Structure formats: C-alpha cells, structure tokens
C-alpha cells in the first residue's frame, strides 16, 4: 500500500515483449515498462522463441527496477504480484512466471496467474475508467481472433474464434509473400492506404449462417493464387492494391460479425482488444458500423493494445478482489483455453 492505494506489480512475457507494470487500485497505471524486441526480430521474419526467452531473461531484472523507479515505489509497497501464465511461447512465458514466483516468494506477496486474453480485455478498464462489464469484445492479435461476451470482471465467454489462421497470422503470411517484412499488420495497414481496396475481389468467408467463427486460410491462399497467376502472365503486381484488397476482405468479415454479436448480446458496448486493434482500417470501419447501430465502441490506445504489463495487472487485481489466488506451483501453459482462466 502507498497513499492508501492497493499496489499490483504485473509481469507479461508471453511473446516478444518483456513488460512489467505497477498499478494503483487496479486501474491507475503508475508505471508500464515495455522492453520491446521487435527490432531484434526484424531480421528473422518472426518471433524466434529461443531469442525471445533469452532476451526476456537478460532484460527482466532491469525492467523490474525500471518499473519500481518510474512508479516511485519500493517492493515493500507492493500488495500483489500478477503474471501471465498462458497462452504464449512456453519458453518466454516461463521467464515471467519464474521471476514473478521468485519475487512473490522472496518478498512474501500473494501471486495471481492471468490468462493473456483476459489481460487484453482489461486494457480497456485502464483506458476507460467508467467502463464496466457486461459488454461484447473483439479480441484480435498475432495469435488470437475471438468474439467474446465479457460477463463480469473475471468471466469471459468465447462465442467465436478462428478455425485456422488468427488475423495476425494471416497478415504476417500475406506480408511475407508481398515481401513487406515483419510484423505484417502495421506493414500491410500502411501500404494499404496507398492502394485501392476494390481493386481485387477476394472472397469473404462468413462460414455457416450465424456462426461467429472465422477462417482466413482460404483468403491467404486466394492472395497467393492471385500473385502466382499475375506472375505467370508476366503482369506487374501492385502491392498496395493487393494489401488494400486483402485488408478490406478481412475487415468486412470481422466487423460484420463483431457488430452482429454486439447487437445480439444487447449490451450496447463493443470493446476492441489485442494488437490488431491498432489497425486503422479496423477502427474506421467499426466506428462507422457501430455508429449506425448505436453501439458504443471502445478502442484502447496503441500502447495498451500491444502486449503490456498494465493489462495483466488490472485483470489480476479483479481476480484477487474476487478471492482467487494462485500458488507457487503455478506453471506456464503454451496452450490455455479461456475456460481454465478462472
């Protein structure tokens, strides 16, 4: 406790960020330190697990010190340790989990494990202090594409997910074949602004009627076929047009389903979460559709869309307040269904 506020220290290392944050009373960010490694990974066309794990290990103590310093608190002031326990790259997750457990044990603090997706949802509680569940959430990131009903602070029901590629994976693969580099999301979003989204019609895959699931694998193949045919004919490829048309095909489906889900749930609120929430086309199209349906749209700022410690701290705080605790036998889980998040 400091100034009569409950302090949570949170660890997030599920992928390429080593991130540690300190929050007061669950929603006020005192520090949010992210040691981004994107620059290192640019040479590899993706996140390299071993490198991720090694850099997490090299960075983590420094990030702890920095988080305490920026928040102007000491370890004695901390009331709770929160940590991402999954899903993610297991080698990377382990560094965060092991460090959090060591700190909790050494400083005699309670510890709580947090599901990464619950963290992305909670980013919105930080950004919007008035936001309260229930609401509809669209969670889209490198490894996840889900539509969910957020029932309360600790309970999320997934009503749709991808059956093959996550949005981020589809973007990365299309960026790979277009020679745009990694990460694919921002690269395609940027070049798409110079292209015509109606230049090429890629089929929109809605799956069965009323299904909230997604499939992007066919779209990726359609882009590949388009490029191969153009190559065979010796035609020049307009990368901006391909990127814009691909992005439009993705967003038409994603926004249609998300808004439909929000309408059916009837909470009047749609919340975006995950790294793909930074995508400018997604924001613009959703805004328009939500306005038409009188649904209030919540989009967190880019710093809270990317993987960060603050979101984990917020989600962990609410679990703790509900009486949940984790033990020092907590493990990291590469695959972790949300049903196990509680």
């Amino acid at each position, binding site marked *: 406790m400091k100034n009569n506020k409950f302090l949570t220290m949170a660890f997030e290392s599920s992928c390429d960020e080593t991130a540690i944050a300190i929050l007061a009373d669950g929603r006020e960010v005192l520090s949010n330190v992210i040691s981004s490694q994107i620059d290192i990974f640019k040479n590899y066309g993706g996140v*390299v697990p*071993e490198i991720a794990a090694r850099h997490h290990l090299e960075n983590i103590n420094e990030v702890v010190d920095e988080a305490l310093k920026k928040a102007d608190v000491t370890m004695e002031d901390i009331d709770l340790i929160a940590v991402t326990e999954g899903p993610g*790259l*297991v080698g990377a997750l382990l560094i965060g989990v092991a460090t959090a457990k060591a700190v909790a044990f050494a400083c005699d603090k309670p510890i709580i494990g947090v599901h990464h997706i619950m963290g992305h949802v909670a980013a919105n509680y930080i950004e919007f202090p008035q936001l309260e569940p229930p609401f509809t959430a669209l969670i889209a990131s490198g*490894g996840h594409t889900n539509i969910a009903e957020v029932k309360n602070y600790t309970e999320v029901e997934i009503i749709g*997910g991808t059956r093959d590629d996550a949005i981020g*994976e589809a973007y990365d693969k299309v960026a790979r074949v277009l020679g745009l580099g990694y990460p694919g999301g921002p690269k395609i979003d940027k070049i798409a602004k110079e292209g015509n989204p109606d230049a090429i019609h890629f089929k929109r895959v809605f799956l069965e009627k009323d299904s909230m699931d997604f499939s992007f694998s066919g779209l990726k193949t359609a882009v590949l076929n388009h490029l191969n045919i153009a190559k065979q004919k010796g035609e020049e490829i307009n990368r901006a047009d391909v990127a814009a048309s691909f992005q439009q095909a993705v967003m038409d489906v994603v926004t249609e389903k998300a808004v439909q889900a929000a309408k059916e749930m009837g909470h009047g609120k749609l919340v975006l979460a995950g790294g793909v929430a930074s995508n400018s086309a997604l924001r613009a199209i959703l805004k328009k559709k939500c306005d038409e349906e009188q649904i209030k749209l919540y989009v967190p700022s880019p710093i809270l869309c990317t993987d960060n410690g603050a979101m984990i701290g917020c989600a962990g705080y609410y679990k703790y307040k509900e009486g949940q605790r984790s033990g020092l036998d907590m493990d990291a889980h590469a695959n972790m269904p949300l049903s196990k998040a509680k």
Partner: protein
Amino acid sequence: MEIKRTITIKNEEDTKEFGLWLGQNARAGQVLALIGDLGTGKTTLAKYIAEGLGITDYIVSPTFTIIREYEGGRLPLYHFDVYRIGDPDELFNIGAHDYFYGQGLCVVEWADLVEEELPEDTMYVFIEYGNEEGERIYKCTF
C-alpha cells in the same frame, strides 16, 4: 532421401483420404515432416491427420505459437510450424525434443528448416504444386 511413393492429389477429398489414413496408422513417437511452400495445404493435411487420430477440436494454425497440442484422440497430436525458427538449435531450447521422442504424433510444418534436429526415422511428405489448379503432388519417404 529416397522417395518411396508419389501421390497425385486432385482435390481436398484426396487430401482428406490420405490424411485420415496417416492419422489412423500413426504410432506414438512418430514424427511426420510436411515440406512445401505457403499455400500448398500443409495445415489442411494436418487437419485431416488429426481427424484420423480421432481429434475433434479445430486444428488452428501453429504459426504464432510454434507448437500446439491436441489431446482427446487415439494419440496426442503435437502440431508444429517451425517457419519462424531462425536456427535449428532453437528447437532444443523450446523443448521440441521432448515432443519428438514423446508419446504422441508430431506433425512438423516447414520441417526442411530444422531437418538436422529431427529424429532419423522421421517420415517426410514433400508437397508440390501440380499442373492443374488445386492439384498437389505428395512425395513420401515411406
């Protein structure tokens, strides 16, 4: 590497038939390497192998997480996409060998990138584009 059979796959039905057969005949500790360009249908084949094992979950892309595990079938399935692994040594560091020599079936996409780290008795399927649209040629070492 000796190619022992070459199969012409005309459509997804053929992929399904071959995948189901692989899944039904898989044994614990087997490693199946799928090698082919983006869009040749490696994950689609993996999906039918899973179905052949009796797994009912959706087989989603392992590209982001590198490894995905599926229980609930006749054998566990460990589905890898090693595209983003820069150096074969990194496989060791993520514990891949525990899977390769474990009690399940490992299906490894982009296995050519880590060939030296795979067990000697790994079974390979090289997937190439055929002449017709949608056609694929499977070249197998078994």
